[in-house]
C-alpha cells in the first residue's frame, strides 16, 4: 500500500503504543530523524527497544535514555573511548538499568536487510572467535564456518530523507542514505521526515532510492540543528 502525508511529526506518531521496537536511521547527523526522535521524547513513549547505529550524546535518543523511555539498545557504537563524556545511555547501562546488544556494523546492516527481505538470517564470517560471536549457532558451507545471525526487524522505523512524493517514494541526500533504505524494508510502520514533499512524477524514477511500497507515513519539516559531539 502507498504512504500517507502527515501534517506534523507529532501527528505522524498517532496510534503508536508503548513497548515497541524502534529503528532509528541515520549515521551520526547524516539522515538522522531528530524531529521524529524529539516527538517520541515529547510523547513519552516508554518500554522502547532502540535499534540504531549509535547514540549522540545529550541529543535525540539520548534524552529518551535519560528519561527512562528506553529499555534496550541494539547498536554498533555504544560505549565511548576513555576520557570522553558519558552519554545518558552509558550511565544507565553502567548502572544496570538498560540492556545493550552490540553488533558489528556490517552484520547490523545485513540483519536488518534480512528481516526486510524475508530471509531467515545471515551467514557471516565476522564475529567468529570474538565475544560477539560467542554462543551463536554456526553453519558450515563448503568447508568454511559462518556465524548464523538472526534477522533484525522492528515495529516502527523512523529516518530522515531529502525528498518524498505523496505516494511515499523517497530520495536521500549524500551520506544520509546509510541504513535508511534497509530500515525502510524491515519495520511494520515506516515514518520518514523529509525536506520536501512533491507530487508523484516529480522525482526522477532513477533517483527513487526507497520505492513507495516500503513507506507508510511521510512528514515535511526542516532539519533540526544538532551539533556533532563525537
Amino acid at each position: 500500500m502507498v504512504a500517507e502525508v502527515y501534517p506534523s511529526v507529532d501527528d505522524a506518531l498517532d496510534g503508536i503504543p508503548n513497548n515497541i521496537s524502534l529503528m532509528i536511521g541515520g549515521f551520526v547527523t547524516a539522515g538522522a530523524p531528530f524531529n521524529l526522535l524529539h516527538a517520541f521524547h515529547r510523547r513519552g513513549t516508554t518500554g522502547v527497544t532502540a535499534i540504531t547505529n549509535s547514540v549522540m550524546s545529550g541529543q535525540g535518543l539520548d534524552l529518551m535514555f535519560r528519561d527512562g523511555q528506553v529499555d534496550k539498545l541494539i547498536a554498533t557504537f555504544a560505549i565511548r573511548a576513555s576520557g570522553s563524556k558519558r552519554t545518558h545511555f552509558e550511565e544507565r547501562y553502567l548502572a544496570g538499568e538498560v540492556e545493550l546488544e552490540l553488533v558489528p556494523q556490517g552484520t547490523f546492516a545485513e540483519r536488518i536487510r534480512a528481516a526486510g527481505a524475508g530471509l531467515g538470517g545471515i551467514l557471516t564470517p565476522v564475529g567468529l572467535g570474538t565475544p560477539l560471536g560467542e554462543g551463536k549457532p554456526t553453519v558450515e558451507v563448503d568447508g568454511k564456518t559462518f556465524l548464523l545471525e538472526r534477522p533484525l526487524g522492528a515495529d516502527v522505523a523512523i529516518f530522515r530523507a531529502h525528498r518524498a512524493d505523496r505516494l511515499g517514494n523517497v530520495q536521500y541526500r549524500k551520506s544520509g542514505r546509510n541504513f535508511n533504505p534497509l530500515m525502510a524494508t524491515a519495520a511494520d510502520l515506516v515514518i520518514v521526515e523529509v525536506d520536501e514533499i512533491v507530487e508523484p512524477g516529480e522525482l526522477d524514477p532513477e533517483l527513487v532510492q526507497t520505492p513507495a511500497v516500503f513507506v507508510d507515513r511521510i512528514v515535511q519539516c526542516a532539519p533540526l540543528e544538532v551539533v556533532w559531539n563525537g
Partner: protein
Amino acid sequence: MAESQTRRPVGLTRELMAMRVAQELQDGMVVNLGIGLPTLTSSYLPADKKVLFQAENGVLGYGGIAGESYDRDLINAGGQPITLLPGASFFDSATSFTMIRGGHIDVAVLGGMQVAENGDLANWFVPDRGGGSVGGAMDLAVCARRLIVVMEHVTRDGAPRILKRCTFPLTATRCVDLVVTDLALIEVAEDGLVLREVAPGVTPDEVQALTEPTLRLASDLTEMSL
C-alpha cells in the same frame, strides 16, 4: 637492555606515524581509514597517488576533512565533515559492507589496543568504561585484503601492546598484516613477527625490549624513511 626497559625511546609523532602508513598506499587502491589516528593518513598521501577512500557509512572517493562549511549529510565514519573528489559515489550501508566483506577494500587502516604475534587484533573493548564499540572494525579486520594497525608501541604505563596473546576481547583472529607504531614497522608473517623498520634513532634492541613476543629481524631491516 636494562636501560631500554626502564627508559622509553623517543619515537614518531602521530603525524609521522600517519605519514609512514601513507607510504603503504598505492595508486588506484581502495582504502578504508578507521576513526582517530588512521584518519590522519589521508593528509599525508603524496600528490601522485590517487587512492579511493571508502567510508563505511556509504561514501567512496572522498577527499579530506572539510573546513568550516558543515554539511550534516556529508560525513565520514567518524562523523567528521568531508570533501568529495571527482568520481565519488554514495550508497547504502548494505552496499558499503558488500564492498568490505566482498574483499574490495585493498587496505584498511585501523587503530589498535593489542596485537598478538599470530595476527589477532583487540581494538574495541574499553576496560575502564565497562564496554565498547565495534562500528565497522570487525568487518574491516576480517575482510580487508590487507590490514594495517597503527598504534603506540606501549600503553601509557609502558606495557607492551604487541603480545604473545591478546588479553582484551578480540576484534578478529589472525587478521593483522602490518603494525606501524611510534617505534617500528612490524610485519605479521606466517611464522611470527618480523621487524622491518625502526623509527629514526631507535634500535632493534629497544623495540624488542618493549615487545612481548620475539621479533625476527628482517634481512633488510632499515630505519624508516619519512
